[in-house]
Each structure stands twice: as structure tokens, then as C-alpha cells.
């Protein structure tokens, strides 16, 4: 089934975390096992929507992310399906050991909502711009991970995570981001979606960089280059079959992510295609440095996370492909 995406002239913008918050309410309506925890960030993570609807299944833990991770583990051990929400920096880094030993090693049915991922968090600066989550989460056995690209995908990913046995980490951003999918765009956990066809190269992206990839594709088309765009929302388990097919059919890959270059989406894709069908690759990512304060748009520009950066990377990778 094709999930072809065409960007309209004027793109609606919504928050991915709102998709998370609304999906939790929908899940709460249909399944009494759903419990939501938060670490003093109800509005930021938008779990306040669930709290208003199901106060008896909402647990405000306070500012204690390690404890919250453990409480969620206990709830899961008792048969609940707990979703806990905090900033990604705290969910992934501060509570990494709790995720590893208590949640993942036991393979508990805990769902982690990591809000405020990426440089686009903006003015809060480096401490709150989570850009190591993919590397940490995908290195831990049993942990699964989704990075939705927009509001609707965040909604669908949250619904899908509840049905998925075992621990799942869902990464969200802070800002309103372009809505590129529709309510009925296909979403299968563990499968990437081809959002635009092309034969010259493949741009594999996740999160808000999917939108930038679609914009880059338009710019490349003007130069006579047809780029395939893959929305690789699930980082783990990785859709290695799709990646091998893209490598084989297009012969070059550019990855794009709002995350550190080390160990992120680019690393995951490289590990996969090196084993199946190696092709020239380029990485659009944060180049091993901490973020800083600024407006989200100026930070995305300064850190090289724009469509133009994907276009430039495409130029480099195509040059190597031609050799």
C-alpha cells in the first residue's frame, strides 16, 4: 500500500505531543488497564488531557524520574499498561539504568513518552534539548522506539504502542510542526513508509525531519533529481527489508534526524545496509555537539537541520554514487 504524501501549499502545524495526549484519552476510553504517570510536566507533555478524564488512573509522581520509571514498572508487573511522560532528556538519560535493568531486562509493558526531543526545543537550551535518546534506547535489548513525524503519526504511534507487548519509547518534540500525514495514513509499527517515490537516492528521515525531507525532494526535483523519501518512524525494530530495497533500488542514502549523529537514525540505517547492500551514505544530524538557546527556526538553521542541508548532502552522496 502506498502512503504517498504531497505537501500542500500551506501546511497546517500541530504539536506531536498533542497527538500523544489525545491518543492517551482514546486509549483510556477503550482499555481500563491504561494508567498514565507524569513527573511534574502534565501540561508540557499534554497528559493533563488524560488526567482530567481519568483522574483515578492518573499518577502525579513529582520530580523523580527514576522513581517514576520504577513505579511504571511495578504497575506493569501488576498487569497495567502504564504510559509515563517527562522530557526526553530525563526519560532517556537520567533514568537510563532504570530503563535498562528494571524495565527492559524484565521486558515489562511500560510505555515511555519522551517530550521535548531535539534542538527545536529552542530557548530552554542544551540541557533540555534531548538529542541522545535514539542512541541510548536502541542500544538496550527489548526496548522498542518510535519517533513520529507529526501530530497524526504521534497519535497513531501512541495507539500502536499500547497494543505492542513490551517496553516502547515514543519521542516527541516541543514545537508545532507541519502536519504531513492524514488521519488515515497507514501506520504499521516496525515498518517504514515510503512517502514519495524516486530512483536517484533515498532520504530516510524521522521526526520533524520528514517534513524537511519532503521539502528537499521538491528542491531536488527542480534539479532533475528524483529522491525517494522514507518516513522511518520506528527506530527499533528496524525495517531492514525496506532499507535494503531502497539501497538496492536507489544506490545512495541520506539520513536526516534531529539527534546526535552518533548512534542515531543514521547509525541504525548504516548498520543495516552495510550488512545487506552497502551504498554511499550521508548524515544530516547534530554533529556531536550540545545545543544552545535560541528560536527553534534559527537553531534548525544553525545546526544544519533544514531541507537545504539535505539537498547538499544529496549532492555529495550522488557524486560518490557516480564514481
Amino acid at each position: 500500500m502506498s502512503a504517498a504524501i504531497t505537501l500542500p501549499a500551506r501546511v497546517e502545524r500541530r504539536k506531536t505531543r498533542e497527538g500523544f495526549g489525545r491518543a492517551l484519552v482514546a486509549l483510556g476510553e477503550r482499555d481500563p488497564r491504561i494508567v498514565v504517570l507524569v513527573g511534574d510536566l502534565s501540561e508540557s507533555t499534554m497528559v493533563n488531557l488524560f488526567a482530567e478524564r481519568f483522574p483515578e488512573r492518573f499518577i502525579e509522581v513529582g520530580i523523580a524520574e527514576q522513581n517514576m520509571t520504577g513505579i511504571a514498572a511495578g504497575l506493569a508487573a501488576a498487569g497495567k499498561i502504564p504510559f509515563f511522560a517527562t522530557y526526553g532528556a530525563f526519560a532517556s538519560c537520567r533514568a537510563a539504568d532504570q530503563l535498562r535493568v528494571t524495565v527492559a531486562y524484565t521486558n515489562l509493558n511500560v510505555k515511555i513518552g519522551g517530550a521535548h526531543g531535539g534542538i527545536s526545543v529552542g530557548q530552554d537550551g542544551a540541557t533540555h534539548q534531548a538529542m541522545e535518546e535514539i542512541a541510548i534506547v536502541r542500544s538496550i535489548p527489548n526496548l522498542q522506539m518510535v519517533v513520529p513525524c507529526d501530530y497524526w503519526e504521534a497519535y497513531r504511534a501512541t495507539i500502536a504502542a499500547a497494543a505492542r507487548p513490551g517496553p516502547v519509547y515514543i519521542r516527541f518534540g516541543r514545537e508545532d510542526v507541519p502536519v504531513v500525514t492524514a488521519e488515515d495514513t497507514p501506520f504499521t509499527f516496525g515498518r517504514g513508509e515510503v512517502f514519495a517515490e524516486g530512483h536517484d537516492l533515498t532520504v530516510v528521515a524521522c521526526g520533524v525531519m520528514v517534513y524537511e525531507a519532503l521539502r528537499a525532494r521538491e528542491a531536488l526535483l527542480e534539479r532533475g533529481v528524483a529522491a525517494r523519501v522514507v518516513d522511518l518512524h520506528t527506530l527499533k525494530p528496524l525495517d531492514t527489508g525496506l532499507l535494503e530495497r531502497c539501497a538496492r533500488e536507489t544506490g545512495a542514502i541520506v539520513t536526516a534526524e534531529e539527534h546526535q549523529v552518533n548512534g542515531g537514525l543514521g547509525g541504525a540505517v548504516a548498520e543495516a545496509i552495510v550488512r545487506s547492500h552497502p551504498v554511499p551514505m550521508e548524515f544530516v544530524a547534530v554533529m556531536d555537539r550540545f545545543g544552545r538557546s535560541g528560536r527553534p527556526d534559527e537553531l534548525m538553521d544553525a545546526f544544519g537541520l533544514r531541507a537545504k542541508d539535505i539537498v547538499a548532502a544529496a549532492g555529495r552522496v550522488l557524486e560518490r554514487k557516480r564514481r
Partner: protein
Amino acid sequence: MNPDIARVTDARDAHRAGRLGWPAERLRAKALEIRRDIITMLVQSQSGHTGGPLSVADFGTALFFHELNVDPRDPAWPERDFWHFSIGHVTPVIYSLMAERGYFPRRDLMQFRSFAGHLQGHPSHHDTPGIEVSSGSLGQGLSVCSGVAMAARIDRHPRRVYCVMGDGEQQEGQVWEAAMFAGHRRLDNLCAVIDYNRKQIDGDVEEICGIGPLADKWRAFRWNAIEVDGHDLDAILAAFAAARAHRDAPTVILAHTVMGKGVPFMEDDHRWHGKPPGPAEGERALRELGTTFAEWSARLLGADTDPDVVPAGGGAR
């Protein structure tokens, strides 16, 4: 009395068919067997912790053979109490208690820490039936138990939740996050037991980073704190009963113990925290406990014919 509480109390009594309720005298005899198991396992594996398991042996036996409402033949029995060792390194006593209670055959103990066996160095849910949540990184267990206690409250389930912690472990910050949470939420279905043996790997707890006054700290976190001699089985049973009766606050039992208890040359010596006895030391320890390695390993490898493994109420449940 609040009618809700009265109803829950009745339900507790009606659902406790998996509780053995052994008297202190019988527990004392079982605790001696547990200590023999521990030394035998460690001599066999030549790897693992000795001191802590021996200090836990008495109140651990009281927990498993008197207090806990569980069905080892059906570890997922929905009515069961939840037990969890936040101190994952005391696996010799955990596995011995589990085997003696009937979770798995005693002969499995002879494969402790081996690649071929299912008894990992630290408790693993994936490998061992009855281990509900894996542990081994200190400080995390009370959070897990608070989550289970919250789930029971949401479901109005009468189960009780027991968390065993160490005294050195009190140095971990997460313990106090969980203590603050459980105290704030008045989780009276939660009971923590601290193996207060005053030793940790590098030496004396009070010299390394003092945790006292420990009972006062827990009370400040809105817990019911009870101090007992952790080797006095009558006192331990009384403390468990008091914890069960206490309303509107979780209970912590500070079990004052002696590291290495039961084997005189190991007692109160931190060097026995993390190492196993060699074969000669093990033989000496087992002699102190009234057996030999040959005798006790043969017992472990023999058939499990002991009626101890059948829960109270037998087939009635």
C-alpha cells in the same frame, strides 16, 4: 472504621490460602536449612555473595514460610502477594527460599550462576519462574513495589507488597524518592524490610557514608518504622503482624542483623560480603551448621519429597 477498609480487611483474610503461617520454632529449623543451602550453593558455584544472604536468612524464612500469600506452583496466581528483593545480590538466599518453598526443584540450586542453569547471578524474570521483576542495580526495588501497591489500590485488590532492601542501599537516592512517594500516598499495603547488617563491600556503612538515624529518616518520610532483632523470629513475626495491621502509612521493618550470621568465622566481617567460601572454608562453615558438603549437596540433588513445598490449604485452593 471506614467501611472500605473493613471490606478490604475481610477480603484479605478470605484470599490468603497461600499463606503458610508457620510458627517461630518451625521457621528456625527451616532457616538452618536455608543457611546450609546458601553455603552449599556458594561452594558449588565458587562465585557469589555470602554475608548478606546469611543475614537475610531468618527474616527471609519468616517472610516466605509465614507471611507471604503465594502459590509457588502457580507463580502468576492473581491473588498472590508481591515480593521483591531490591538487593539482587543476595540471590543465594532468594533462590534457596524459592526452592525450599517449591518454586523450582532444589537440585537447580547446584547450578547457581552456571551457564547451564536458570539461576542468574542477580535475579532475572526472564530466566527464573517466580522472579517478578529483575533486580541487581541497587535502589530501584522500592519504586517497583510502590507501583505494584498503587495498582492494587486502583484495583481494590487485597494483595500485600513486600520489598527487601539493604542498609548500604539506603545510600542510593532513588530509595528516598520512592520512600517520599509511598509515604505521601499512604501505601499501607506496602511493607519494606531492611537487612540492617551495618556492612557493605568496602567496610562499615556508618564509616563509608552513614545512614543513621535510619528509623527517624523513614518516619520523617511518613512511614511506620519498626526496629527488630532480625534474627529473633518471634519479634519478626510480631513486626509483620504490626505492619499488616497498620493503616494509612507504609511500614518499614529495620531488621538488625549480623552479616554472615550462623557461621561464626564469617560473622560481622565485611570481607564476606561479596565472595564465596573456598572448598575448605565451605566445609568448615557447613560443619558449623551441622552438615557437610557431601551430605547437603546430596540432599539438594535428591528428589523433592518434602511436604514443605505444598502450600497451606493444599488442593483446597
